[in-house]
Each structure stands twice: as C-alpha cells, then as structure tokens.
C-alpha cells in the first residue's frame, strides 16, 4: 500500500468513526473509558494503531511516512484516545526499547488494542523537579520485590491497569544509581489511588500510595539499579508528548478567545486593549511558528536537542503573562467569574501548575543555558553522595 493509499484509508476510517474537530467546542471530549477503549480497538483493527511498531508485538510495521500521513489526517478529527496517550506515548516505546521479549509480547498488543491502560509514576511529593531524589523504595523479598511509598501528579491512575513506577532499590548508592523501574499492577490491593484536588478545584491528577505491594522479579524494566537511564528515555518521550499543541481556540487565555470577549464588550475601540491583544497575538503566533520550525527541522534531520525546552518555557510563561493582561482588560469581571470569564479565571489558576508540570521554568532555563548555550553546569553537591546521606525535603 502506498503512503497515499494509507492516507486515504485512514481518512476513510476516521470519517466513519470519529467526529471532525470543531474549534468552537470545548476540547475536553467527554467520552467514557469504555468508549475510548472501543475506539482504540477500532483503530487497531483498522491497522491505524502502532503504525511504526513491529508487527510481532501488534504494530503495523510501517514507516515514518505512514505515521506522518496519519498525523496529518487525524489532526482534523476529535479522537477519544485520551486514556491511551500516556501508555502509548511513554511506557510502550520504553518497553519496546528496554523491555524483555516477554514484556513486549505481554503488554504492547493489549495497549494497542485498548485492553490495557497505563500510567507513568515518577514524581513524589518531596521531589519536584529533582525526580531522581525519589524515596519510594523496593526491597528484595522472596520471588521479587516489596514496594512502599507514595507517588503524586499521576494522570489517569484511577482508570489505569498498569503503571511504570520508578523506585529506589539501593539507597547506599548515589541517587541516580540506585533506581529501578517496575511494571506494577495498579489493581494490587496494596495500591491506593486518591484524587488530588488542585488550585482550580478540579482533580486532574492522583496521589498513589504503595503499601507492601509485591511485584515479581520479571516486573523490572531494563536492569535493576539502571532505572534512571530508562526514566530519562521515558522523559524524552514525554517531552515530545507535551510539545504537541492544543488548538488555540480551546485556550481561554489565547488570542482567539480574548478577542471574542473584547468585541462582545465593545472594548475593541480602546487603543490600549487593542495593543494588548496585538501583543498576545504576536507571541502566540510566534510560538506556533517556532513549533513549525522545530517540526520542519526535525523532518529535515536537524537535531532539535534541548531546544524543545525553549518551546516549553515559552508555552509555560505565556499564560502567566496573559494572566496579568486580562485583569487589565476585563477588570472586576475576572473576579466575579461570570459565565464568560470563568474559563479565564480557571486558566489563570491553572497556569502556575502548567508551568510546573514537566519541569519548572527554572529547570527549563537551566537546560537551555547549559545544553543549548553551553554554559557551565553547576557542579552539584549530590552527584556522587550515597543517597541515604543526602539532605532531602521532608
């Protein structure tokens, strides 16, 4: 099948099975888990899931050209695949890269078929941007390991079947060298998932507690005490996932949404409001252009390196900046959270969290300074010290 034929096939299936994207509808979809599972199964049955992945694990064994063709076509459809984004975006490629033959056979196809939902469990309350300071521990027991501790900021844990969990397996080694990644069955009775309410009042994440959770020996992804390398690989996949933009219209702090409200209030006559909108448009438009440049460079084989951090930093600081501007434009309406301005107010409250997810702005600035500009790395005090001798947050 040629790429064009593949594109046509994908388009035909999507037209049949998915709703076209509508900029005016909120993006949050609203499909149930069951609907998502059914959709994912359909995708797979149509040969549209795991496009570039090996056939032996349930993939389609096709090339990048087909993947790009699918992405292009799919951009116009609302696909209720939310619950699978993490699993297929991070644990699955990591399993393909680091997993044993058995692990790949056991998990990849079920994920593609929509039968298994996965989470990623790295962050801990005391860790923040310093993920490698994690304290959740696993000790060797007969037939495997016993995990105790707590993870946080876990998306989708409440409906996930498995988790890729990063755990400290040797506290006498320096922090990066005593970590192992495990496959954990989240239905295990020792696992407690609790919704985490955030500043907006929503609970988009979970806290996950591990209380004597037993996992077998073959639950290790990669090697024991080599989990940091696996995690770094997974975080690289994460950055790709985060980089994928949301449609502009969906952002209440974006130009499209703001200009609509401004017009509805007749504020488009006010020169300073017009100038503010111009600034918002300019930066938003440049962020889009920058994403496009990085995309085109990636396609052309130019290494992107750590430049994605600049996109992340720009994306994170944008809503924080617009937060101030909308207060000037809409004044008390923001505080009253009217039907119109409630989404704005919620986005303002969500912006600091968004800036923190995937590494704080400070971390992004360090990455840009060190890896893009080549400035010297801070020597660091924690690189070679045994973990159990390090100072940690309580």
């Amino acid at each position, binding site marked *: 099948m040629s790429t064009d034929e593949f594109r046509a096939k994908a388009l035909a299936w999507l037209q049949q099975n998915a709703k076209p994207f509508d900029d005016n509808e909120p993006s949050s979809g609203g499909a149930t888990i069951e609907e998502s599972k059914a959709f994912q199964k359909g995708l797979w049955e149509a040969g549209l899931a795991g496009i570039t992945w090996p056939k032996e694990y349930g993939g389609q064994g096709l090339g990048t050209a087909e993947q790009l063709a699918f992405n292009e076509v799919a951009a116009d459809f609302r696909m209720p695949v939310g619950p699978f984004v993490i699993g297929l975006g991070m644990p699955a490629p990591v399993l393909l890269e680091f997993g044993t033959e058995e692990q790949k056979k056991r998990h990849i196809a079920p994920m593609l078929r929509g039968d298994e939902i996965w989470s990623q469990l790295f*962050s801990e*309350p*005391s860790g*923040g*941007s*310093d993920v490698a*300071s994690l304290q959740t521990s696993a000790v060797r027991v007969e037939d495997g390991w016993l995990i105790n501790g707590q993870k*946080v*900021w876990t998306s989708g844990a409440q409906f996930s079947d498995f988790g890729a969990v990063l755990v400290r397996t040797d506290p006498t080694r320096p922090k990066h060298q005593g970590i192992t990644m495990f496959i954990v069955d989240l239905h295990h009775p020792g696992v407690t998932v609790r919704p*985490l*309410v*955030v*500043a907006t*009042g929503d609970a988009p994440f979970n806290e996950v507690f591990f209380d004597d959770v037993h996992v077998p020996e073959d639950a290790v992804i990669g090697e024991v005490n080599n989990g940091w390398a696996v995690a770094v690989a997974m975080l690289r996949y994460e950055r790709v996932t985060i980089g994928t933009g949301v449609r502009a219209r969906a952002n209440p702090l974006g130009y499209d949404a703001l200009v609509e409200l401004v017009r509805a209030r007749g504020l488009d006559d006010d020169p*300073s409001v017009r100038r503010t909108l111009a600034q918002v448009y300019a930066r938003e438009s440049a962020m889009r252009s920058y994403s496009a440049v990085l995309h085109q460079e990636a396609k052309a084989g130019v290494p992107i390196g750590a430049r994605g951090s600049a996109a992340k930093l720009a994306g994170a600081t944008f809503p*924080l900046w617009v*937060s*101030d501007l909308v*207060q*000037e434009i*809409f*004044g*008390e*309406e*923001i*505080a*009253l*959270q*009217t039907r119109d301005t*409630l989404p704005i*107010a919620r986005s*303002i*409250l969500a912006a*600091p*969290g968004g*800036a*923190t*997810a995937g590494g*704080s*702005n*400070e971390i992004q*600035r*360090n990455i840009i300074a060190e890896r893009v500009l080549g400035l010297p790395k801070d020597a*660091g*005090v*924690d690189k070679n*010290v045994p973990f159990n001798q*390090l*100072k*940690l*947050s*309580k």
Partner: protein
Amino acid sequence: MTLIDTDDQRDLASSVKRFVSGQAPMAAVRKTIASEASFDPDVWRRLSQELGVAGLPIPEQYGGAGASWSDLVVALRELGSGLVPTPVLATSVLATGTLLALDDEEARATWLPRFAEGTAVGTLAVSEGARSPWAVADSTCVVEDGTVTGTKTAVLNAAEADVLLVTTASGVVLVEKGAPGLTITPADALDLTRGIATVTLERTPGRLLAGDAAAAVDAVADLANLALASEQAAATKACLDMTTEYAKIRYSFGQPIGIYQGVKHPLADIYTDWALTDAAIRKASESLAEGSETASLDAAVARHLASSGYVEAAKQTMLLHGGIGFTWEHDAHLYYRNAITGNVLLGGPAAQQDRIAQKLGV
C-alpha cells in the same frame, strides 16, 4: 510626617495579630470558606467588641474609637496578612467612610454605632461594571418617588449587609436589608475569602442622603485605595515569608532551593517591591491622617503598587512552591485568588493609573 508605627499602633498590631493566630488562623479561614457564609459573624463581633477594629475610624460620639484611618490601616495589615474573611472593608471603610463624608446626621446616628459594635454590616454599592467602578454622576441607577432602580456589580458583603449605600446620579441612597425589589445574587467569586454579589434594585424604597455624593465617593475611593493597599501589602509579605521559609526547608539536588539564584532573585525582587509599597502606604496613611493635599495621589500610588506587587508575589508563591503550591490544600491559591480580586476590585489597574494621572494633574 512620621512613617514608622507609633507605640499605640504597635500594640494594636500585636493585639490583632494575636487574635488572628488564635481565633482566625488559616484552618479557621478554610472552615469559613467551606461553609455557606462569607465570614464568621462571631469573629467579626469579637474583633469589633474586644479589639474595637470596626469602630477605629468611627468618631467617639457614634460609639467608635475616634482613631485615625492610619490606625485602621494597621489593623487591616494583620487581617490581610491572614486572609481573614470579615466585612471590615465593606463596613468600616466603604460604608463608614461614605457616611462620614456625606452630611446626613440621621444616617450616621442610626448606623455608625451599630457598625462600631459589630452588630450591623454596611456596604457601598457603587460599581456598574469594570469600566465604571466608581459610578456616581454617570450612574445609570435612577431615583424616583423615594425608590431606586438599577444594577450594581461587585458589591462587597451585599448578601450580609444590613444597609446598602447605593450611588445614583441623584446622590447616595440608603437601602435597608430586605427592602422590596432588592435582589442580591452572590457571585461565584474567584476570591474565596470575600463575599461579593450583584445587586439589582427594582423600585426599591430608599432614602436619598444629604451631602455631596461625588465628593464623598471620591474621598471614599482614597480610603478604599489605602485600605486595600494595606491588606494587599501585608498579604504580599505573608506570601514572601511563606515562600522564603519553604525555600529554606525544601531540598532539590541536595541543597535547599533557597540557595539557587533562580529562587533568591525573584524573592529579592518581591522583597524590594514590597518594601517600596510598604513605604508608599505609610506615606499615604500619614497624608490622609494629616489631610495633606497629596492624600488622594498618595493613596492611589499605594494602591497601584500594592495591587500589582501582590499579584506578582502570589503568582511567584505558587510557582516557587512547585507542584505543592498548585494543590488545593496549599494556601498559595487562596492568596493568588485574593490578589487578583483586589487588583480588579473598585477599579482595576488602568483605573488606578488613570486616577494617579488625574490627581497629578497630568
């Protein structure tokens, strides 16, 4: 002009501070937030009766302490620092300030004593939307046959108010709780520590008060600016202190995050802006107390700096606390909500700058 607290003010500050930590700590504030009420009436009554906060600016003849506005500013500092939900801004600043600036002895004699003892809540219904936050001459509220008709937005503590002072093009009209045609619709307020409502009046009976309404509202705008600035600067300092303490105990990469310049420098900037704002408030407070001709200007300057500085400080507090600062459990968002609300209430940033320019005579 003295810009440092007097001994009496220091005493007042520590009494209120003690009261806040004992009777209205953050745990109690969260309880109030979780309840239907927008403040704890018991806390307000005790603040008024035991500490005399409500009556500070009320003359002795009406049962108040007859102190100066700068004394109230000192008390507001402590209340603002702890985000204590009270009707102090509505009652002791807006309503009291309006009655004192107008010339209606009957209204004063009726309401000020009750305000002072914390048994009545008053408020000023003045805003008619973001573009008209201090509507008087340009008000669309109409007085006819002893009734008032119109809509007011962002009215503080309207739901709890025993008396509403409603600005209209004809003057200030006094409307009592439960008056016919009076509808109060509580807003889904961003700030969880303030009660805010929209008030509609449909041929609601009310009494037009004697006195120059425009001048009175202009004077009250100064009081509101100073009072809000005082609350905001204190809350800014609370955010700064909270984040500084966190930066000392939170470890990242083997060191307390407060050792990194990426944390130090924003905190130093917040401190610097706060220090300037605090000084500006002291200046405005003294100007008002002395009746200086720059009082309006100084109050607007203080408010402008306090509002914008608080928004920045609260935002940085959320950011520098990382994930934890983004949880509902953490207080950072309560401050951020309060900061944004204070920034846009009773005239947003542009209105504040316009007022400075106007008072400067530019």
